């Protein structure tokens, strides 16, 4: 195979000689693949962890019946037990408490029927507790609790000792009656699980007469689907009867937005890596123009030249992808804890300590790395084959040959931008087509726009340089003029460098725009939502149900209002409910009280319509995201599952609410109490009397309740600051990706300028021989670099704003609602322009030093 000879004698030497180039490309591919592999593993591990804990907690149950997160009447149990085919149907309280031990720990609390539960789940008691759990003893004492051995050892707790757990009724003391060996449910949540008798759990967690779940085992030989449909018929509508696998699916759906977001980030990393390869191969083609010319003159076919470049990329991609696959597994290992924490805080508690790893994960990353590398190298490799042997081997300034002539390039560029515009238009106008109004369309439009502008870079750079020559260069001296002329001589190659900066800056600006817009929209909403002076909550400021939050009795508002200086204390409760196979948030407020001071941000309808939500009437407000997904308008009615059976509610208004990316419904708290029979609150919004001091009142509330329960009593300003901090944290990955893209863009500029300086050795020698100072030579190169930075930066800012807006349209508005608007982040634009100019000037320093060091006599003899 003649290619083997080419690789052996040319590629292998090239790779060795261009160490910087090779290492840079390998690192780029490695990072992209590592991102894909690690994010893939992390995503899978999160799902596996949920699946594992669902399966362990489920035990032998083939079906699980769930309703609203607030619980449902235990009377339902009897109906299920009498369904033919059902062997056992056992009630479960599935909630959480906070253990106050050496440090605070969130505990999963299972309240079970101790007499029956062993028919469904296996509990193995450790030896030291062998003499205890007489179920009757358990029943006899409502303060009994079973903990896992792992937890007991960690906390240094022994049998019969007491532990303190925060419950709905405040901090309560329980006595450890036994320890569970790590088997069955005891193995989930890293051992942070405790078992209580059902009535005791109901009492402690404010669920009197309510249960969270019914776990069902079936008689041997009974058909799952038959039993399922029989149960469905036996109970009211609105409950879901699911297999454990079905419940895992629900969880997958719940966190799908989160997974989509981090997948997008891994895609960006791969795209950046691809651009780096494109850049590296393009530069290599330009640098090795003469080599290609000689090879072609000596009889290398076009195919051989293309294969040479693709082959080199192939070898580099193998190394980069293999490294990336390995690094990805390491990344996943180190990131899994943090991701688990985020998922726990934002969606649902989980405890992940190990990654779920199969060889398929690194293999998929490796294949994606190889394919995207070769795809990125294809275009410049094809360009290499267009190099004519005559112009390459003759020592004359060459006219640039590209795969496409500059005319065709303009046409292709215009076509791409046009297609992007058409897609955008279709996306905006055809709102109801699932094919046209999809994130995929927006995604394709973004890629087309990026490519379109990339292809237009030579023409735009040319235009800028003409402007520079006519308007600016008279004021910048000989170095400036020369820099302009040098860039103009090699538009194609310099355009690649400008495009690298363009790409980096556009990612930077678009990402900054999205972050700014999201923050702005959420903060605007929070401002309209949080109208109190002080917020009293028992969990993390933005904790949702399932996260670290122990609800409080709703009547606590009365106690808070007794604190001197307090004008009013309004309770707020949020729970997840199932609505059309989605898990959405049900938010409840005292509308009558809120009407007095809350502006309510309304997307469709009037603020006055909120009055319809007042008690005694079945009205709700639905958030934009949900109304868009379900095509619901004000006046439409929706059927919501309640513990009393399904109830029809009329939508009064469509409101703006960013509490959940799966949708939310707002209801008056009295209506909620009427149907859900649950009297809990997650937080209280406290207003103080005019003239009172916020700090003093805050202190007084904390004093009054701090002994009985763990509370966060935060002034509204601090509460908002906490929320802002959480939003910032959520964007940490985006900032990391920004830094990487800018770094790659700078490397791109260094490589380009270095190639340009090497190519101009003779010319620089001539300039030095006629009296150009070393400092002047440096200045020329640095000005060239800055000019490239300015063009790339300006293009990047323009494209970044458009792409930011498109991403908001395509990815965020679908999830959060149409009220989310694009806010231009002027600070990021200022930074982008400054960064692109300064960084490219810095990137020019090394090539400039190389140029300044040029030896005149050697340069003049240089060929």
């Amino acid at each position, binding site marked *: 195979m003649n290619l083997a000879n080419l690789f052996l*004698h*040319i590629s292998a030497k090239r790779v060795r000689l261009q160490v910087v180039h090779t290492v840079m490309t390998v690192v780029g591919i490695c990072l992209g693949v590592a991102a894909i592999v690690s994010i893939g593993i992390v995503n899978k591990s999160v799902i596996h962890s949920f699946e594992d804990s669902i399966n362990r907690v489920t035990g032998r149950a083939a079906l699980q019946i769930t309703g609203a997160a607030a619980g449902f009447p235990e009377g339902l149990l009897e109906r299920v037990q009498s369904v033919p085919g059902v062997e056992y149907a056992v009630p479960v309280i599935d909630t959480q408490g906070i253990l106050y031990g050496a440090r605070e720990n969130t505990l999963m609390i299972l309240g079970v029927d101790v007499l029956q539960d062993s028919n469904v789940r296996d509990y193995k008691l450790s030896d030291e507790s062998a003499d205890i759990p007489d179920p009757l003893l358990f029943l006899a004492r409502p303060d009994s609790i079973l903990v896992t051995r792992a937890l007991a050892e960690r906390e240094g707790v022994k049998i019969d000792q007491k532990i303190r757990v925060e419950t709905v009724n405040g901090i309560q003391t329980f006595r450890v009656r036994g320890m569970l060996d790590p088997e069955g449910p005891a193995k989930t949540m890293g051992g942070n699980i405790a078992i209580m008798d059902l009535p005791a759990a109901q009492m402690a967690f404010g669920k009197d007469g309510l249960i969270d779940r019914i776990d069902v085992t079936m008689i041997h030989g009974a058909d799952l689907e038959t039993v399922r449909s029989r149960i469905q018929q036996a109970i009211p509508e609105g409950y879901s009867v699911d297999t454990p696998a079905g419940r895992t699916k629900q969880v997958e759906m719940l966190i799908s937005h989160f997974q989509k977001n981090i997948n997008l980030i891994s895609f960006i990393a791969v795209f950046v890596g691809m651009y780096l390869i494109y850049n590296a191969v393009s530069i290599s083609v330009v640098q090795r123009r*003469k080599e290609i010319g000689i090879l072609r*003159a*000596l009889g290398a076919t076009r*195919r051989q030249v293309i294969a040479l470049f693709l082959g080199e990329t192939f070898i580099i991609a193998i190394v980069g992808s293999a490294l990336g696959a390995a690094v990805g597994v390491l990344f996943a290992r180190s990131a899994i804890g943090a991701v688990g924490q985020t998922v726990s805080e934002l969606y649902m508690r989980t405890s992940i300590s190990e990654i779920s790893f199969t060889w398929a994960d690194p293999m998929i990353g490796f294949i994606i790395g190889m394919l995207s590398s070769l795809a990125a190298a294809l275009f410049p490799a094809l360009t290499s084959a267009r190099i004519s042997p*005559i112009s390459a081997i003759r020592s004359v300034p060459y006219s640039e040959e590209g795969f496409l002539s500059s005319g065709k390039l303009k046409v292709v560029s215009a076509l791409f931008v046009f297609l992007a515009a058409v897609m955008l238009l279709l996306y905006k106008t055809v709102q109801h087509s699932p094919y046209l109004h999809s994130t995929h369309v927006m995604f394709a439009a973004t890629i087309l726009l990026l490519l379109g502008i990339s292809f237009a870079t030579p023409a735009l750079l040319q235009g800028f340089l003409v402007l520079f020559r006519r308007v600016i260069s008279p004021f910048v001296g000989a170095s400036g003029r020369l820099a302009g002329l040098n860039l103009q001589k090699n538009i194609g190659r310099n355009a690649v460098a400008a495009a690298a900066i363009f790409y980096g800056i556009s990612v930077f600006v678009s990402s900054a725009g999205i972050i700014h817009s999201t923050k702005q929209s959420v903060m605007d909403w929070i401002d309209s939502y949080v109208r109190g002076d002080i917020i009293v909550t028992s969990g993390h400021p933005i904790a949702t149900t399932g996260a670290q939050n122990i609800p409080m009795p709703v009547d606590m508002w009365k106690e808070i209002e007794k604190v001197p200086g307090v004008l009013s204390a309004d309770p707020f409760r949020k729970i997840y409910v199932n609505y059309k196979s989605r898990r959405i948030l049900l938010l409840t407020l005292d509308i009558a009280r809120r009407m007095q001071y809350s502006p309510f941000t309304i997307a469709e309808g009037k603020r006055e319509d909120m009055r319809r939500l007042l008690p005694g009437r079945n009205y709700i407000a639905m958030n934009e995201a949900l109304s868009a997904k379900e095509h619901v308008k004000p006046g439409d009615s929706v059927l919501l599952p309640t513990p009393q059976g399904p109830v029809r509610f009329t939508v009064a208004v469509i409101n703006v609410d960013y509490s959940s990316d799966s949708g939310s419904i707002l209801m008056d708290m009295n209506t909620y109490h009427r149907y859900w029979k649950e009297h809990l609150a997650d937080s209280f919004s406290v207003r103080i009397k005019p003239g009172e001091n916020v700090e003093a009142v805050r202190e007084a509330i904390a004093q009054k309740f701090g002994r009985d329960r763990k509370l966060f009593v935060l002034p509204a300003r601090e509460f908002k600051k906490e929320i802002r901090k959480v939003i910032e944290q959520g964007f940490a990955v985006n900032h990391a990706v920004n830094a990487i893209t800018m770094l790659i863009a700078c490397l791109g500029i260094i490589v380009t300028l270095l190639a340009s300086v090497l190519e101009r050795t003779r010319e620089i020698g001539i300039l030095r021989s006629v009296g150009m100072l070393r400092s002047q030579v440096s200045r020329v190169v640095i000005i060239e670099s800055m000019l490239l930075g300015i063009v790339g930066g300006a293009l990047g800012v323009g494209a970044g704003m458009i792409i930011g807006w498109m991403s908001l349209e395509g990815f965020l508005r679908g999830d959060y609602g149409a009220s989310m608007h694009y806010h231009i982040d002027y600070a990021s634009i200022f930074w982008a322009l400054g960064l692109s100019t300064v960084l490219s000037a810095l990137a020019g320093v090394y090539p400039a030093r190389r140029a300044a060091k040029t030896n005149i006599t050697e340069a003049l003899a240089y060929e």
Partner: protein
Amino acid sequence: MIELRNVSRTYSHGTKEIHALRDVTLRIETGEFLSVMGPSGSGKSTLLNLIGGLDQPTSGELFIDGRPLHGVTDDELTLIRRRRVGFIFQFFNLLPILTASENVSLPLLLEGIPYSKVKPKAEALLRKVGLGERTEHRPEQLSGGEMQRVAIARALITGPAVLLADEPTGNLDSRTSEDIFRLLKGLNAEGQTIVMVTHDPKAAAYGTRVITLQDGSLSEDTAAGGRAL
């Protein structure tokens, strides 16, 4: 034998047309050493590029040993370059990353023959051009004359039908130039057909026949000491 029948080559430069060669008819016999002379822009290099298969005529016909070079695909033309033509350039055009021996072997490496098999032949050729001791040197370690000898050895490795030299000594001092011309003369004496472009009459005199181009047309042919055809 090389034959050109009414060969023209036109380049378009924007809206302007440049006639680099106009209707040239020429026959170069096997074993001839043809010197091509003419002022700058007369079409010398264009003629060489056409014979070497680096370029194709706009009109007319061109044959090497009866095989047409006009109207063939790029791949066919490339194979003709690889197997039937040996190039010697003014600026040597060696690959700086390869040793002398590897540079000489390059055309056969492109054929897919392993280096281990090509190497003895390459070394023999390097010995023939007087570089037997410098086979493992890279171009940067060689003098101008030595680089041109490497280029000559490379041009010979496929046993080409014709050796094309474009101002082969344009970049060398007069003593080294003479050595190169003597080397070429010697090769010609062994039967190698050579076409050499030069604008130095002294260099042209090494040829067995001298033609002169003027504005893309053949103005003089001293094959038999006569005038242009």
